[in-house]
């Protein structure tokens, strides 16, 4: 009888411990996540195609760049963080241009005049396109600017950065895409 009671108590205790462990595991998993990082469902999928008018040049069609690593950066002239990451994007363009990497700036919720003025002042050398109806921005699930996507040579999105991207992080993502496609 005593043995039975002891066994029941042990089972009850094990049940309580298991329940507490599950709750703690949920809390640890949830609290360990950075709330500002929202996983894009597009990572690993084909990048939505677009043909957009360039500010200073012919229209750009993404599908025509298949076989090259493409960095798509959504930005606006009124966006302070976009100014912060400008150096990183310029550096990536200079550093990887010869390796077949293309950087495209997609202007978001801006006026053509303000965008042109910024491009001239900041001496942006890579192609900058306009997305007047935000059709492309919505296809990429944009929540704000800046946001950057890295598309590999097969046309798949391999990285998504929300907020200002650093030069080292961008170089790392581009290198990963180049190395993966070289294999």
């Amino acid at each position, binding site marked *: 009888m005593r043995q039975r009671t002891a066994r029941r108590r042990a089972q009850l205790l094990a049940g309580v411990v298991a329940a507490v462990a599950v709750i703690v595991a949920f809390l640890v998993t949830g609290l360990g996540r950075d709330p500002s990082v929202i996983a894009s*469902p597009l990572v690993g999928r084909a990048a939505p195609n677009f043909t957009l008018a360039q500010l200073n040049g012919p229209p750009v069609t993404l599908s025509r760049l298949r076989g090259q690593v493409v960095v798509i950066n959504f930005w606006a002239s009124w966006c302070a963080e976009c100014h912060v990451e400008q150096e990183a994007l310029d550096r990536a363009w200079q550093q990887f241009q010869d390796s077949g990497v293309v950087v495209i700036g997609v202007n978001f*919720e801006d006026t053509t005049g303000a965008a042109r003025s910024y491009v001239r002042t900041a001496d942006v050398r890579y192609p900058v396109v306009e997305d007047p*109806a*935000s059709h492309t921005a*919505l296809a990429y699930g944009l929540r*704000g600017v800046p946001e950057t996507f890295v598309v590999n040579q097969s046309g798949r999105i391999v990285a998504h950065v929300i907020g200002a991207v650093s030069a080292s992080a961008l170089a790392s993502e581009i290198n990963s895409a180049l190395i993966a496609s070289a294999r």
Partner: protein
Amino acid sequence: MTAAGTPERAGVSLSGLVVLAALAAAVATLIIVAVGGHRPASLAQQVQQIAAGLHCPICKDLPVADSPAPLAQQMRQEIVQKLRAGESADQIRAGFVAAYGDSVLMSPPRQGVAGTVYYLPLLVLAAGLITAFTLLRRWLRARPHDPPGAGSPQLSQRQRHAVARAISRLREEEPG
């Protein structure tokens, strides 16, 4: 085949015809009400309906239909364009889900980890009921089946006489 059977059968078929006619009239009325009563929604109504089911990605708990944010306005515009291009409401919703994930829906599907939020209370309730039922059954089994009157103390013959005497004495002492 009797002579008397013919009018009887004719009567049955006549009543059957009446029932059939009544049924046909009812079905026709229902079709007329269903088709004529629900006019196809206008473009604005369709946009409103779809936008009400989408969560504004940059707002807190606000549907695209009610958000003044430029992104929400562009989403509404995108819905208009897609509807004009012949896409269905489901296709439009699927397009937004592909870009933003399930979180863009005001009512995300009850699948995966998110589904536990919906089903956990029910599971807890079911577990509680099972536990209560098990405990109750165990308690009922553990309790000995007492015979009727077993709860009252067993008195000897002598004690019963003493109690009867005391009761009769009390009655005699009662006034009136």
